[in-house]
C-alpha cells in the first residue's frame, strides 16, 4: 500500500555543495518501505515545476522519511530553497525494492554518484555483510562516508580524478577486485547497482562476462509513478516494462541495453 499526503519539512540541510538531505514528517505513511523503493515528491503552489520528482528511500523511522538528493535542475533547485515548516506532497512508497540475498551470498553493492541514496538503506539492512563500491567524480562528491563505513564489511571508494580512494571508475575498481579475488566463486556473489545509465550498462557487461547475478535500479522519466501513464518504459527481454511499477529494481539480465 502506498499513500498520498502532504508532508511537512522537518529539515532540509546541505550535506555538501550540491547535495541536500531532506527530512519529512510522515505520520500518515502506512507501512515500512523497503530499500530500493522510491517516492514522488512534489512542490506545491506552482505549476512550474509541474511533475513530482522521484527520490529513493534513503532512511526512515521515528515518523520521518529521509531523502538524499543531488541539486540537478529546476525541481531540485527549488526544493533546496525550501525550509523547515514548508510542505511538499509525497506519494509512496512506490515500485519494488531490492530482493535480499540468500544466506552465505556476499552482496557487492555498486553505487555511482547519487546512486548511493538507494543503496544506503540496503547496506544498512545487510548489516555488515556487504562490500560497497562507491565511486564519484571527485572526493567532495562522496557522501555519508562515515555512516557507510560503519555499515558495510568493506567500503571501497574511487574517484575519477583520484582525489579520494582509488583513481578510476567504480567499474574499473570492481573489475580489479573481481580479478584479484578470483578465489570468490561468482555464484557466491550478488551484485546490487544504482547509478547513471552508462554505469549500469557497464555493470551488466561485467555481470554477464563473469556470470554474476544481481539487480540494478533503473531510471526513467516519470509522470505518474504508479504505472498508469506508461512514461517510464525501460526495454527488457520481455518488451517494455515500467520503471515505476515493475521496477525500479530489475534483475540485471532482464534489461536490454
Amino acid at each position, binding site marked *: 500500500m502506498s499513500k498520498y499526503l502532504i508532508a511537512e519539512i522537518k529539515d532540509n540541510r546541505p550535506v555538501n555543495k550540491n547535495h541536500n538531505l531532506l527530512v519529512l514528517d510522515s505520520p500518515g505513511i502506512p507501512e515500512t518501505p523497503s530499500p530500493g523503493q522510491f517516492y514522488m515528491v512534489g512542490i506545491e503552489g506552482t505549476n512550474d515545476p509541474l511533475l513530482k520528482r522521484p527520490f529513493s528511500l534513503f532512511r526512515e523511522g521515528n515518523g520521518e522519511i529521509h531523502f538524499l538528493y543531488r541539486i540537478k535542475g529546476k525541481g531540485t533547485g527549488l526544493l533546496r530553497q525550501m525550509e523547515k515548516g514548508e510542505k511538499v*506532497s509525497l506519494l509512496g512508497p512506490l515500485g519494488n525494492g531490492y530482493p535480499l540475498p540468500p544466506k552465505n551470498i556476499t552482496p557487492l553493492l555498486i553505487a555511482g554518484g547519487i546512486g548511493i541514496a538507494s543503496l544506503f538503506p540496503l547496506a544498512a539492512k545487510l548489516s555488515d555483510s556487504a562490500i560497497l563500491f562507491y565511486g564519484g567524480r571527485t572526493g567532495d562528491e562522496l557522501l555519508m562516508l562515515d555512516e557507510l563505513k560503519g555499515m558495510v564489511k568493506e567500503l571501497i571508494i574511487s574517484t575519477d580524478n583520484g582525489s579520494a580512494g582509488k583513481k578510476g571508475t567504480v567499474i574499473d575498481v570492481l573489475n580489479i577486485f573481481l580479478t584479484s579475488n578470483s578465489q570468490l566463486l561468482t555464484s557466491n556473489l550478488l551484485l546490487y547497482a544504482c547509478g547513471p545509465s552508462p554505469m549500469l550498462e557497464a555493470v551488466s557487461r561485467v555481470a554477464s562476462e563473469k556470470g554474476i547475478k544481481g539487480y540494478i535500479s533503473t531510471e526513467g*522519466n516519470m509522470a505518474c509513478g504508479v504505472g*498508469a501513464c506508461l512514461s517510464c518504459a525501460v526495454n527488457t527481454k520481455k518488451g*517494455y516494462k515500467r520503471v515505476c511499477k515493475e521496477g525500479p529494481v530489475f534483475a540485471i539480465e532482464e534489461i536490454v541495453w
Partner: protein
Amino acid sequence: MNLTINIGKLKLKNPVMTASGTFGYGEEYSEFVDLNKLGAIVVKGISIKPKEGNPPPRICETSCGMLNSIGLQNMGVKEFLKTKLPYIRKYDTKLIVNILGNTIQEYVKLSGTLDDAGVDGIELNVSCPNVKKGGMLFGTDKKMLGKLIRTVRNNVKNSTLITKLSPNVSDIREFAKVAEESGSDAISLINTIPGMAINIKTRKPKIANMIGGLSGPAIKPIAVRMVYEAYTAVKIPIIGIGGIMNYEDAIEFMLAGATAVAAGTANFVNPVATLDIIKGIESFMKENNIMDLKELTGGLRC
C-alpha cells in the same frame, strides 16, 4: 443539489472523468481514488492488436506542461476485454473506451467489438499525434473525419459515441460541426498539441519520437477557447479537456460550454485530483446557490 449530467444516452453521476491515457485502466489509481465516485473512467487508447509503444524517453517536462509520446502502447482489445473490463465493471461508474485505428475498418471493428461487450461509451481518438500513420489525418481532414464517424456510427448500437477532436486545426468549429452532423453523440476536446523540446547539451530531442503531445496547465487557455468556440457551433454535449488541475479550472471549462470535464495530467500532479475536483464543484455550487450543475454550462457572461 444535482451534479448529474447527460452525454448522449449516458447519465453520469457527476461531470468529472479521467482523460484517456492518464489514468491507465483505473486499477493503477484505485489505491488512492474510490473509483465509484467518478463520473466516468476513460481508459487508455485501445487498438485491435497490442502495440509496443515508442522507445524511451517518452516524456519530458516543459514549462507548466509535459510532452508525451507513449506511442499508443496498449494490450489490444482482446486482452482488454478479458482482464480490464471485468475489473472496472466491479465499480459503480461509467466506462468509456478510447479507440484508435489506422483505417476506418479498424475503427469499425473495434467499436463494434466494444459495443457488443457493453461498454458505456466509445471515444474516437482521431488526433493522436504520436504515430505517423495514426489518427492524425482523420482529425485534421473534415471529409475523412465525417466519413469515419458516419461509418462507425452505423455500427455502434448501444454505446455513446464521442469524437475527440484534434486542436491542430485553424477552426475547431468546423470540425465540431462535422462530428455533430455525422452522428457523434458528443465531442471531447482537446487532445494534446504537437510540440518538441531539445536538449541543448546533447543536441538531441528530449523525447525519442522527437515530436510529442503537449498537455497540462500550459495549454488550458487554448483548450478553453476551443471549447467556447465549439459551444457556439454545435448543440451536442462537449467534454472539456486540457490542463484542468482543480475545480476552478473545471468550472471555467463549464462556463465556456463544457457539459463534462476530464482531468489528464492533473492525475500525475495530484493522484486524487479527480476527487478534489468533484468536492470542489460541490462546494462551489453550495456557496453560489447553484441547484443544478447544468446551469453552469455556457454560463459565460460577455
